[in-house]
């Protein structure tokens, strides 16, 4: 058993080396497939981050009448947090609103004087609500416009921004779905191309397979070296594709940060490098081995 395994591995490496041209051609196609795969991984990370950034900018504010007691507001905050659609709720008290307002207009003499003369705080307390999904703002808004809250709530910002919010929500949703569809299509194409290449490579070896059978080689002995070759393809192309992407990532990352603030591609890449390599190895070897197995099956059956 051990000698058979040793011989199968030896033949695998031997075939790979002696049919260099064929091996390199196959390797390149798998490498391309892996690059597409890796590109999609990075593209998805970047676009998700971009959509998160957009989504984070959307929120609904509810302003309470100045007469509304703080306890009631906090109770509403709590009940909002209990909603499954809600991601976070920020409470901005009247005092805090005033502080922010003062700070924003610290250089404007007339405004600060006007506030001082007013003698009391004219600003309303508010709750800043963020939804998990932008399409859920209408649900949250209608919850806040409930009749039972009528005495406390002055206005909800949703009405003014409804059109913009809905449009953004649509863009984000379509963007994410489109990204997924694109990923699926490209991954499928890449697999198909790699698979066909290996099929052809083995097709060019079909006479050898027949000869091996005539000499009395078992199916495993014939199949084994091709599986070994598949693993070699997978490993080499995974390492190569990582080596190609790394400098690209370093080059592109600063430009990307201009478009999407807070997107640090380099740190994403370096902190996930083993995960990426792992996926590549897995993906590459699976393509290599599975397509070899399927291709060789055809020639083992009589």
């Amino acid at each position, binding site marked *: 058993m051990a000698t058979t395994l040793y*011989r199968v591995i030896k033949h695998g490496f031997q075939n790979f080396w002696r049919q260099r041209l064929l091996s390199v051609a196959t390797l390149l196609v798998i490498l391309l497939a892996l690059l597409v795969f890796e590109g999609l991984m990075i593209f998805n990370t970047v676009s998700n981050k971009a959509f998160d950034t957009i989504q984070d900018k959307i929120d609904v504010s509810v302003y309470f009448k100045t007469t509304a007691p703080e306890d009631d507001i906090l109770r509403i905050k709590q009940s909002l947090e209990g909603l499954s659609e809600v991601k976070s709720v920020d409470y901005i008290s009247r005092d805090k609103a005033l502080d922010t307002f003062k700070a924003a207009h610290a250089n404007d003499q007339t405004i600060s004087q006007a506030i001082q003369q007013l003698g009391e705080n004219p600003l309303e307390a508010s709750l800043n609500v963020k939804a998990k999904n932008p399409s859920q703002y209408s649900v949250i808004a209608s919850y806040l416009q409930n009749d039972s809250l009528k005495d406390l709530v002055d206005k909800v910002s949703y009405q003014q921004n409804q059109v913009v919010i809905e449009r953004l929500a649509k863009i984000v949703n379509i963007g994410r779905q489109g990204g997924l569809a694109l990923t699926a299509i490209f991954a499928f194409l890449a697999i198909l191309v790699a698979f066909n290449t290996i099929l052809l490579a083995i097709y060019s070896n079909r006479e050898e397979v027949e000869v091996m059978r005539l*000499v*009395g*080689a078992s199916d495993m002995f014939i199949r084994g070296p091709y599986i070994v070759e598949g693993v070699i393809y997978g490993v080499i192309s995974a390492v190569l594709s990582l080596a190609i992407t790394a400098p690209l990532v370093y080059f592109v990352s600063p430009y990307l940060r201009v478009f999407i603030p807070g997107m640090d591609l380099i740190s994403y890449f370096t902190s996930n490098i083993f995960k990426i390599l792992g996926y590549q190895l897995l993906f590459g070897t699976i393509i290599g081995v599975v397509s070899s197995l399927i291709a060789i099956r055809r020639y*083992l059956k*009589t």
Partner: protein
Amino acid sequence: MIHFQNVSKDYNNHHALTDVTFKIVPKEFVSIVGRSGAGKSTIVKLLIGEDKPTKGRVIFGHYDVGKLKSRELPRLRRHIGTVFQDFKLLPSKNVYENIAFALEVASRPEHEIYDYVMEVLDLVDLRGKVKNFMNELSGGEKQRVAIARAMVNRPDVIVADEPTGNLDPVNTMGIISLLTKINELGTTVILATHNKDIVNQLGRRVLVVEDGRLVRDEENGRYSV
């Protein structure tokens, strides 16, 4: 040792073999002759399990060849050395590796493989070409490699299907005398050929096949049509 019992083989309504019966005993040298398409190759294919008979039984030793599953064929084939007109060698392996392959698939230990391969290389006189690849050999040399591979396993029988079909007269004689030598060393040889000169020169048992039927079976036979 080999027994064809009323064997028929049809390919899509074409009768390749019809009711063929014969026996071959150990250490015999048997020529199967006939025109192209007469059924010689079909007999060879049935013997090594490449095809299954439509009717009748093919017995080889204790194997009922027609009933073997494809998983069991490798075992049978390690008892039979095969030589073909188109050599059927592995182009990506060198002379040594091509011959060693027949032993490797039978899980023989490495040192034994070396000894056996060198021994047959001496017999076919190719020791000087151990490292050469197939595209660096002449037709006669290729066929000698094929014969070396066929016999390195020390099989019970060597089946040669038109082994000289692609060779010139000088190489043809070389291959035939090699097969004779192998036979003298104690291996059964079955030679399928349409070469009249070879058969007449051998003066051994001859089976004549015509249109899929066995029409003659003679000791010291001659090939006449």
